[in-house]
């Protein structure tokens, strides 16, 4: 290995660098970056909707999907790094909307959160009349050392909702020894709850999927509460993206009308209980969104 070889090496490095610049530049021409919450990606809902949208409208656009928690998905949307987002965290959504950084396209689907916990249910969540009382029972049992709770702790839609519920109860679990934060996705959080025999709040889809895979032996569904535990999915377009690029605005409008028509049928036929279309209950779900967004 002499100086010549070294020179050759450097030249190769330079060529590769330039080549990858060109490669990267060409590929990034007309992308539509879409950020999404993990649950929609994992259930396959988003890829179904987007590919059906392309087939139905014939619009030539390449969607690139970023899988993030709702908090991060909204942040990259507000930055204009992503053009559209599919999220489920109404209070965060409202915050970005009020700042004028994102615009809502549609509230297009909903499902339920459920409270899950060990089947012997030491806190007596099964007997609670609603979700708020259930959380209160978990808190009291936790203080007595009889129960644990695993929180996402990552500002995802589920985490935001859980924090709202604690505020409604009027008790703060922050820093209590029985209150564990996984700071990870829903699946890891559920597995952690399973392993330590703790309670947790989860979206129905993830829980059902995990249970059907046979990964949950101890954890069972303990409490549903359609009033307090409704989970609303919305689509957003980035303000800066739509302002600077009329094509993005056009695609966004098309996507909006697709989501509320053909997309609704797709959801109804394929996902049923796990992700429900809003059709026929638009006003009801919209009101639920309003309530959730202003709960704080």
């Amino acid at each position, binding site marked *: 290995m002499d100086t010549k070889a070294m020179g050759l090496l450097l030249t190769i490095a330079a060529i590769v660098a330039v080549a990858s610049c060109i490669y990267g530049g060409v590929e990034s021409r007309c992308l539509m970056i879409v950020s999404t919450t993990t649950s929609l990606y994992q259930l396959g809902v988003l890829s179904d909707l987007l590919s059906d949208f392309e087939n139905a409208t014939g619009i030539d656009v390449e969607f690139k999907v970023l899988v993030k928690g709702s908090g991060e998905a909204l942040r990259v949307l507000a930055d204009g790094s992503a053009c559209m987002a599919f999220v489920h965290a109404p209070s965060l959504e409202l915050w970005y909307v009020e700042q004028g950084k994102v615009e809502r396209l549609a509230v297009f689907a909903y499902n339920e959160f459920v409270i899950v916990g060990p089947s012997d249910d030491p806190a007596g969540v099964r007997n609670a009349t609603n979700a708020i009382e259930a959380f209160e029972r978990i808190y009291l049992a936790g203080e007595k050392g009889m129960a644990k709770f695993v929180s996402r702790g990552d500002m995802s839609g589920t985490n935001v909702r859980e924090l709202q519920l604690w505020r409604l109860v009027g008790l703060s679990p922050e820093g209590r020894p029985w209150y564990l934060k996984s700071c990870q996705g829903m*699946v890891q959080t559920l597995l952690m709850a399973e392993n330590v025999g703790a309670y947790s709040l989860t979206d129905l889809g993830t829980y059902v999927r995990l249970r059907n895979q046979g990964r949950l032996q101890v954890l069972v569904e303990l409490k549903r509460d359609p009033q307090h535990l409704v989970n609303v999915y919305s689509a957003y377009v980035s303000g800066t993206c739509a302002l600077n690029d009329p094509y993005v605005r056009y695609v966004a409008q098309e996507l909006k009308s697709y989501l509320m028509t053909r997309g609704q049928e797709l959801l109804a036929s394929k996902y049923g209980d796990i992700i429900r279309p809003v059709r026929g209950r638009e006003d009801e779900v919209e009101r639920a969104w309003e309530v959730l967004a202003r709960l704080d």
Partner: protein
Amino acid sequence: MSESILSITLRSLYISSTAALIAFASAVALSAFLARAPRRRAEMALGVFEALVGMPTTVIGLFVYMLLYPQGPLGFARLLYTPIAIVIGQFLVALPMAFTSMFRPFYELRECARELVLSLGCSEKHATKVLLRELAPVLTSSYLLAFSRAIGELGVALIVGGGIEGYTSVLTTAIAVRTSIGDYEVAIQMGLILLSITISLALILKVFGERVLWR
């Protein structure tokens, strides 16, 4: 819904070897430059880079994000969420590793061995040749370290690459996403692939080095 492991692996290899190569070349240039500097100044520079070796890749990822996002200083280039964004980030991740692992031998060699070689009657040109051959094993190790740090990092690839399937998804982001949706089996499979890539590359380079470069 998911792209084949092979194509993710190839993309990973392509992105990380490019990043490691650029980092390696820059480290060589930097070392050559600093080897002429007074000892004190060189040590200071080395210290700074040594501290940077352990920098969390997520922080580097955020830093590159700030550079590349649409309102950022380099936003006009539209590089965010492209493979080139990952190359830039991984270059920054790998550079301190490459530099710190090669600089001291570089410096020592220039200080001590060069005089020895010259005093034994070598010409200037020949001396450079001899020194480079002495350095070859160090340089190989240093490239390996840079590559392994680049291909194994997650923070940058996740933040500025986004792990977009079929475009910027690399092994580490695919592992993270698979883990987050509970596909532990596929995740661990990809982890093993990652491990075997770095180990086999190390073996290949070492054997190749022993046979060819510094026989």
